[in-house]
């Protein structure tokens, strides 16, 4: 299986009046195509900053980063944006739906930005898949938190990304809705063979990923693989098909 994301000696510092703050130090990691990775850690450990760097939303102070074989750390903002448009999808903790657009318009947006001609049909298809086809003309304020996150997931998958970044996707939801959303996320992840990188502080969600990377004070302190998932991933690598046990997790 090919490597889709690779980081070497990533450092991220911010400069304040009181001196330099090291947010991330010496991060090395590589993620293979189709894998699911959870970045976990306490608040302030640098999870979201790492996610931002990996997704190309920001640039590291030093270090190298490749996304889909492109040297992301050497690209300017324009080229990184182009790469994001082609490769990356996002799910955010606070959904980040645009309040002035309807559910359908929100889902269509990434495809429209790429000038895709089938933006509408693709968006409608994904809204059906998150069971919100009947509410496509509703504005975000007319939807509950769980529904808004389902729209956000439909938007993330409608752009058919190779890699999907999710920042605390269940962080703003109650337990019931949280489960529902994580089921949806993993089901679509499997169906579309998208690589999933998510940041969470919830252990149950992290355990549903094949691999967990633990951050503490900006450094990777552990990088482990869930035993049964290790087997599943190697199986997937061979068959490129979701296994029965994985399908069972979709709920």
């Amino acid at each position: 299986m090919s490597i889709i994301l690779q980081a070497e000696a990533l450092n991220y510092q911010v400069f304040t009046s009181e001196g330099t703050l090291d947010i991330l130090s010496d991060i090395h990691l590589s993620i293979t195509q189709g894998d699911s990775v959870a970045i976990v850690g306490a608040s302030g450990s640098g999870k979201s900053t790492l996610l931002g760097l990996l997704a190309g939303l920001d640039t590291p102070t030093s270090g190298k980063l490749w996304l889909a074989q492109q040297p992301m750390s050497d690209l300017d903002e324009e080229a990184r944006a182009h790469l994001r448009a082609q490769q990356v999808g996002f799910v955010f903790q606070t959904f980040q739906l645009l309040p002035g657009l309807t559910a359908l318009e929100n889902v269509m947006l990434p495809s429209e930005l790429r000038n895709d001609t089938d933006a509408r049909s693709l968006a409608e298809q994904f809204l059906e898949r998150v069971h919100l086809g009947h509410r496509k003309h509703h504005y975000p304020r007319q939807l509950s938190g769980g529904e808004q996150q389902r729209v956000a997931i439909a938007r993330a998958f409608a752009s058919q990304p190779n890699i999907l970044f999710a920042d605390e996707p269940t962080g703003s939801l109650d337990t019931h809705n949280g489960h529902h959303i994580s089921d949806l996320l993993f089901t679509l992840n499997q169906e579309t063979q998208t690589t999933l990188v998510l940041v969470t502080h919830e252990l149950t969600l992290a355990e549903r990923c094949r691999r967990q990377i633990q951050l503490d004070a900006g450094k990777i302190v552990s990088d482990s693989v869930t035993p049964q998932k290790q087997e599943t991933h190697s199986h997937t690598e061979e068959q490129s098909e979701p296994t029965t046990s994985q399908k069972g997790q979709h709920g």
Partner: protein
Amino acid sequence: MANLMLSLKLLWRDWRGGELLIVGLALMLAVTVISTIALVTNRLQQAFIQQSQTFLAAESAIQSSKSIPIEWLEEAQKQGLATGKIAQFPTMIQHQGRFQIAAVKAVSSEYPLMGHLEIKRSFDSQPVSIKQGPSIGEVWVEPHLMRLLDVRLGDKLTIGEVSFVVSAILEFEPDRGLSFINLGARLMMNLNDLEATGIIQPGSRIRYRLLLGGGSENIASYLKKLEPILTEHDRILDLNENNPRVAKTIDRASSFLYLTGSLAVMLACVAIVLSCRRYSLRHTQYVAVIKSLGLSQHQTFALYAYQVFFMASCATLMGLACAWVLQHFIAHFIEQLLEMSAPAPQWKPLIIGGLAGLLCTLGFALPSLWQLSRTSPMKTLQQDWSNPEGKDWLNYIPGPLCFCFLIAGLTNSLTLTLALITGLTLLLMLARLTGLFALMPLSRLLGRKHPRWRLVTGSLHRRQGFNTLILAAFGTAFLALATLYFARTSLLHEWRLKIPVDAPNHFLVNITPHEKDAVQSELDNAGIKQRFLYPSVRARVTAVNDIEISDWPHQDNPATRRELNLSWSKNVPIGNNIEAGRWWQSGDRGISIEEKLAKELGVSIGDRIHFSAGGLPFSAEIINIRSLSWDTMTPNFFMLFSPGTLDHLPQTYIGSFYLPKEQKPFIVQFIQRFPTVTVIEVDKIIDRIQTTIHQVSFAIEGILALMLFAGALVLLAGVRTSISERLQEAALVRALGAQSALIRSSILGEFMLIGFCSGGMAAIGSELALAAISHWALELPITIHTTLWLFTPLLGALFIGALGTLSCQSVVQNPPMKTLRNIA
């Protein structure tokens, strides 16, 4: 193209936000103001050029008190110019024992080179347009003169030694003019008949003109060649030479209108900046999200720039359409006022309006959007939706730069632009001071007495920048409106009261020496005692102290280029004061000169001025310098001579008298008796001036009303910027148990207080401006206008109070739960 379509789609989806509507309205307003002024000025300029050219009946002309040399004519023809010749003079016409003075115009066969004549071949036929004057042996006569001479078409009348057939009634000539020589009834004849009449003798009051046509460049090169050989009796008549005051007045009026209009444009631009900042703030999340979805900064900027340019184009087109409609009304109004027709506007003013719209968009809307496009996509993870722009001072440079560029381009004057910018800066400082030392203390004072008022004080304290803007915007609008209103009502009324009741209200012009005694006895018979009669000689300054006027350092003064009316008097005239020197004693031969003219000409007591009256030279020394009072309503002369100095020169008389209203029929009787004397009814002219001032200030008040509209847009945009903050405050106060009436009354109180202070600021400024006008322009004692102090703050409080309360409706109406949930 796809980006453009997407951009338009997003614009359509986002229109509900409201900020773009304010930006659109503000742009439309700016374009309307600039284009209307540009269109009206353009029409006025065109009317002026057209009128000046037809006024000459040629593109250019040379006027001389001597016959036009044949060499000039040959040179003009050699250069391929069209030429024509005119001779004008007053002379006696005779018909069957009746005599009448007429203003005769002898024209060559090429006359008129521009415009046309209108004649009637019989009394009851329609006038026909014709491009040629009378044939040899024929004359055309104005109806008025035909009645005076009792002459009919086909009759013969005599000029000098020759008889002519009256072949047509002269209805219209393009270059009728208003000089003294043309004031009598007109008779037109062929120039080739002139010599035979024998009336042209040395010293005759005759004026010759060489008319020129054939393109401005050719004429300019011809005149350049001719200029060195022209004497003081020859004058080139072109547009500016012919009527320099009109050209300057139009230029000044247009600059003044642009400056007044630019205040409205400035306010519109402030509304644009405020709305764009609010729009940027509201779109920070939007941009962070679309950038995280893969849109680059340039693509993001293009997305917004397309939207704004599309919206700006629509607003500009609508602004141009509004201006087109408005200028029709204004031009119609001006046509009636000036009794002339203004030609259809050209396309250039529309380009000026379009460029103004573009500059406002580039300078005031785009910087916020550029900053918006720089929003980091990391904000989606950081949840930081603060305004990306506020910290970057570079964003505040393009707006003022574009504004300066616009004003400099419109007024064509760096001085005016700098004056305006300085004025605006001072105004903002003044508004800030009003906020600090009037608004806030007043609010705190009220807060001490009424605890509920503290909400208002708190709100005013938090938004001091916004208060300064509103104070400046409405303070200026109210100031300008109040000043104009009180100047045209109260001051003009006071000025009219100042004129003595029995001040002369009729002027007589062009009384010949042989009519003088008859006129005096006619006035005596009518019981008119309050009357003055002065001799008048028309002459041109040729030299000062033996220095030719063309070499004199002050030769650019208009008085050196035109003929002056000179008179003499034994005693100091009423309303005149000797400022330097002494009044003459018997035997003195000298000049008394008006002090301003002396200053402009750079002459003083002891200087000798040389004149030429119709080719007859004479000179005299300045003996004293006088000041004049125009309020006496008697004829005033800039140069008076000692008795006997001008006796040998051709002269007419000018008079003035007071006639009570009930004796008005006397004027008809007088005109019938002295048809060549022109009667000017001064009271009618004053009425006309008053009406004109009323109408013009009414028109300017129209532009100022647009300024109020622009101020309202600034207020709306400003309120929108703070609306979430206001909603939050109101929700919290209501959650603590306050009723909506309290919220409503504190909003009303806040805006009424701002309005009251703007009105107060305007009242102070307006009273100062009125005092300056009273003192310097109208020479009236300075008075305090109590109604101004009473009504301006009151109306300000009501207007801004109502506007502010309306724009904050959602703050009162929004359920507090909804707002608090959104905050959480």
